[in-house]
């Protein structure tokens, strides 16, 4: 990569990495570039879905005019996030809250086992109108330890923030392959911190979920991947994926707020939906020079199970692409079973 960098050097390098690879020496070798990355549950590069790989994309000032970086060293601390946000503003020359959302975009890579993504995204959304998009770091489904990186230093229980001023047009794709069914489930008793729904519609959660699907309770967990629930906002869906049943409670991969009406969802065709979303965005931008894909591991597993992983990778063959399989995606809030993508014209 160092050989291929233009003379004016790389401003930013994004490097989803293997959790078991010590690449600190590698990242220090990319002179003049700020390097961010995280551990993953799989990687994506133009045209291919990979495992056990390191992928990288370098941006120079023809694509990214300016950038600032900071680390939220403790994602459970509001002060840590406030400090990181303040540093971004100081480095870019304008407070985060005053930046034009049409000219700037943010990337967030966050510890996927921290359980703090919702709080961080909520507070970031309060502090700025700039959209931060990103993903939760993974560790190949071991669920032991995930890392985020900035310039050779690895962090846990942390988030890396990158604030970018693209040189040209950019836009975001958020795509999830589900349709809303008629059944709604209202969490009437929850433990937000544990991402636990104790009751839906004033009934034990597992029983209510199974009842909504019309399946015996003992079969409910088999339907999690195909039938998660979602917060419907107009014509968009923010997916909340169930993780496991304990007793009568359902634990999710993201926080579910009490009283938040959720639609029962049914999965559709990931490849077809993603093709449509990417083609439409490329048409709107009149071309794409780079794409970063934060791609839910649950989608990756579904594609693999259906023998569609190569077909999915091929969707990005014509666009310089990197991405990784995430333990959650970030766009306005923390979401599941979604791909969030940053596309540069």
């Amino acid at each position, binding site marked *: 990569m160092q050989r291929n960098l233009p003379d004016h050097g790389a401003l930013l390098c994004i490097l989803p990495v293997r959790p078991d690879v010590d690449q600190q020496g590698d990242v220090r070798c990319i002179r003049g570039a700020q390097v961010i990355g995280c551990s993953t549950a799989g990687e994506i590069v133009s045209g291919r879905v990979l495992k056990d790989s390191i992928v990288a994309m370098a941006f120079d000032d023809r694509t990214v005019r300016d950038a600032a970086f900071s680390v939220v060293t403790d994602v459970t601390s509001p002060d840590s996030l406030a400090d990181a946000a303040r540093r971004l503003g100081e480095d870019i020359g304008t407070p985060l809250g005053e930046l034009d*959302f049409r000219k700037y975009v943010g990337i967030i890579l966050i510890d996927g086992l921290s359980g703090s993504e919702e709080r961080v995204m*909520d507070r970031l959304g309060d502090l700025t*109108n700039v959209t931060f998009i990103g993903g939760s770091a993974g560790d190949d489904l071991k669920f032991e330890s995930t890392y985020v990186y900035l310039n050779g230093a690895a962090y846990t229980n942390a988030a890396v923030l990158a604030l970018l001023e693209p040189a040209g047009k950019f836009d975001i794709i958020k795509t999830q392959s589900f349709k809303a069914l008629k059944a709604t489930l209202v969490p009437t008793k929850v433990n937000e911190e544990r991402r636990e729904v104790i009751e839906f519609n004033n009934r034990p959660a597992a029983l209510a979920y199974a009842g909504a699907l019309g399946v015996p309770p003992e079969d409910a967990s088999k339907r999690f991947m195909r039938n998660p629930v979602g917060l419907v*906002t107009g014509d968009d869906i923010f997916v909340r994926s169930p993780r496991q049943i304990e007793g009568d409670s359902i634990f999710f991969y993201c926080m579910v707020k*009490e009283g*938040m*009406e959720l639609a029962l969802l049914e999965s559709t065709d990931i490849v077809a939906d993603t093709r449509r979303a990417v083609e439409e965005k490329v048409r709107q931008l009149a071309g794409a020079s780079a794409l970063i894909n934060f791609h839910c591991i649950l989608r990756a597993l579904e594609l693999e199970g259906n023998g569609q992983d190569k077909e999915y990778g091929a969707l990005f063959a014509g666009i310089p692409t990197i991405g990784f399989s995430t333990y959650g995606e970030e766009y*306005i*809030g923390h979401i599941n079973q979604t791909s969030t993508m940053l596309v540069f014209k």
Partner: protein
Amino acid sequence: MIETIIEKRSGGNETLKNTTRTKLIIKGYHPDRWTLQSEDDPAKITELRQIALDMGVKL
């Protein structure tokens, strides 16, 4: 009250109106479900005032 937060935070920009609306829905405050009864719920009003403060909106 919710619409006031959306209007002030967005400055009338349609894209920001949609984003702000979505942020509020994710926070548990859906504009379409905010009713006259909600306006009489002290706990909800207090929470919404804090949300406005957090978002830098003066009500």
